[in-house]
């Protein structure tokens, strides 16, 4: 099942849910990129990758660029595939940190598992976008004249006021709206 909205018509004709997922990945990409650019030293320390701060910051810039591309482009499909390629690069780089006597191997394993999870989501999103985007849905039908009211909407509002709601369908008296003229309300006391 596939739905298009005005937004997705502008953005490659994917289903609205797929497009929402792509946008989510775009925002995630920018957030992760900012973290990598802002705190490469902290990340390098946590992963036992001292000396590779420049590389991490560079990867951060890549993430930010990809995220902007996803959010701003007319068709996010190539940018999401770009994320998949970036994920592969991230995994390969992290794998190098598993070699030797890195005392932070446990953290690296956690990071790789997280990247693998995001990669799965990226691959799913990219594949779905690739499937949907080349096939735009036919133009929308125009139902804006289907009122159902031969006399028009405003003439029809309350036209059935002669209908008496059966006793067993009425709201209990205590739950009916207060129908007396508005009485002045005192301000809420401060507690």
């Amino acid at each position, binding site marked *: 099942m596939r739905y298009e909205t*005005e937004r997705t018509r502008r953005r490659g004709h994917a289903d609205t849910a797929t497009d929402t997922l792509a946008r989510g990945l775009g925002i995630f990409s920018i957030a992760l990129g900012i973290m990598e650019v802002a705190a490469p030293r902290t990340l390098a320390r946590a992963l036992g990758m001292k000396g590779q701060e420049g590389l991490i910051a560079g990867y951060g810039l890549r993430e930010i660029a990809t995220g902007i591309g996803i959010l701003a482009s007319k068709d996010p499909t190539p940018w999401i595939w770009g994320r998949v390629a970036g994920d592969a690069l991230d995994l390969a780089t992290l794998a190098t940190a598993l070699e030797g006597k890195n005392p932070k191997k446990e953290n690296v394993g956690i990071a790789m598992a997280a990247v693998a999870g995001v990669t799965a989501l990226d691959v799913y999103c990219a594949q779905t976008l690739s499937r949907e985007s080349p096939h735009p849905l036919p133009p929308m039908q125009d*139902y804006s004249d289907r009122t*159902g009211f031969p006399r028009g909407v405003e003439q*029809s509002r309350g036209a*059935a006021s002669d*209908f008496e709601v059966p006793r067993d369908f009425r*709201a209990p008296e205590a739950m*009916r*709206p207060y129908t007396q003229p508005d009485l002045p309300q005192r301000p809420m006391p401060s507690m």
Partner: protein
Amino acid sequence: MKALVWHGTTDIRCDSVPDPQIEHPRDAIIKVTSCAICGSDLHLYDHFMPGMKSGDIMGHETMGEVVEVGSETKGKLKVGDRVVIPFTIICGECDQCKRGNFSVCERTNRNGHIAAKAFGHATAGLFGYTHLTGGYAGGQAEYLRVPFADATHIKVPDGIPDEKLLFLSDIFPTGWQAAVQCDIQPDDTVAIWGAGPVGQMAIRSAILLGAKQVVAIDRIPERLAMAEAGGAITINFDEESVIERLNELTNGKGPEKCIDSVGMEAHAAGTVDAMYDRVKQATMMETDRPHVLREMAYVCRPAGTLSVPGVYGGLLDKIPFGAIMNKGLTIRTGQTHVNRWTDDLLRRIEEGQIDPSFVITHTVGLEEGPEMYKIFRDKQDGCVKVVLKP
């Protein structure tokens, strides 16, 4: 005769089957002139409702001409009468029928013992809607046997096209009852989840009954446009927060009346509870996806009413009963007591207050029915309501 026959999940075919016969003196046979596919038929198409058997004839929105009557229908029905057939089969004589609670007729469900095991008590027999409701053949066919026909019919006059009358069988009285269950007051905001056929009828009913503000919630642009044409303010749940928008439209107080015309197969992409329901339903740990019920309970104004015409089948998970209890909400549900409303609604059609044919988007022959099930289910081609002409 030709009929649309259920063979399994998403497998409906136009088959040749034996013509129906009078089996009981209260029966009648009608030649079907128009019938429709209902949203609740999709629960059978997707096989979310248990109790279907291969070979069952589909359909419960039917009208036509009486061609044969049993000996005990005399005086009530005669050959040549033009009738709409309500989807609920009623005896007209039991305690519930006498009270107007036709959808829980005590005598027409011939498999009442099965329904009683599932629900505690039997409900009425229904056309073409599983063996839990009697296993009666449905009306997406050239001919239909109508059991208890002396009570189970709505006589309609000549001179009005089928398209204006057909929906007296189900969706119009269902939308009407949904609104009546709300006991609408002139200051009320009525929020309606789902702008499918029942939702569209509920919108028109709420307007006729004088609601100050009607809000329709859906994600499909065509359906939202149709809802707007009928006087509703629309919310596309893919593009904005339903709860925030409803609170904004009601000065933060929430709508007084909420109608769930979605039921068990809610699509709420992106919400945590919807993903949870999908997983539980896929692993057969939950029968229904009640996202709409949860949202209604949360956003409804305290002391308000939740009206539920949407079909649910079994066990629902994570219903916020704390909100329902503490906010003092009233819940009104039920299959529609069709004949309770149809005299009044027929008069309103005749007087030109409403023309229910606005909802029809596709009219095809019976042979194209199987394909139309898929198009309707997938909401392709702007499909809102399909009428079949046998």
